[in-house]
């Protein structure tokens, strides 16, 4: 069984972009502030389109904003 996890650097990138507020970022990408908060807390993974829009706002490639880690549970064999 494998468990996937998507992490992001949105918070860090906001601060590097003249301390952009969550509200400002939300308005630029067309979502609510609550969605930005949920993404920063890694409770919500955005759609591919929204992920690209966020990367476009920061002017960086997608992989600089989001990273994917796949943890595979190893089953011990007797």
């Amino acid at each position: 069984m494998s468990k996937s996890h998507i992490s992001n650097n949105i918070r860090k990138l906001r601060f590097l972009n003249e301390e952009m507020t969550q509200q400002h970022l939300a308005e630029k990408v067309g979502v609510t502030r609550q969605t930005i908060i949920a993404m920063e807390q890694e409770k919500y993974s955005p759609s591919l389109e929204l992920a690209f829009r966020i990367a476009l706002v920061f002017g960086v490639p997608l992989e600089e904003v989001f990273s994917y880690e796949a943890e595979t549970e190893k089953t011990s064999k007797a």
Partner: protein
Amino acid sequence: MSFQQKNITVSLVNFTLILGFFLFRVIQMLQSDSFTLGNIFRLWGITIGLAIVVTIIGTILTHIVSAIIEAIRTGKDDPKIEDFEDERDQLINLKGTRVTYTVSSFGVFLSMLTFVFDQPSLVMFTLLIFFGLVAQIVGDISRLVLYRRGF
């Protein structure tokens, strides 16, 4: 709390009150021996009418109260309310609707089972509207839980 969460909370309170009113009227009918098909159909009409009217009024009031609170908070004459649904809101809404339909289907199945136990049709009609209201309440609760969890 986002605008969508406020709207769901208002809907939850409304439907809980309507369910309370429905149960109160059914118990009253049972106590006064007026539990008849005609009375149950009248109660159906009142309950559905109430649900529609209260939902519309609730949504309008949520908009007005949110605008007033936002105006006081920001000090602006024309406050901006985030009343649009983004992709996360839509996904949560879809999941909530799925829960509502699941409970509702289970309720319809249970209501139909009353025929197996030789119960009169008014028991089935009473259970149908009861499970309809319960399904709406459970759906609203699941939406609020999803908002709390993030998704």
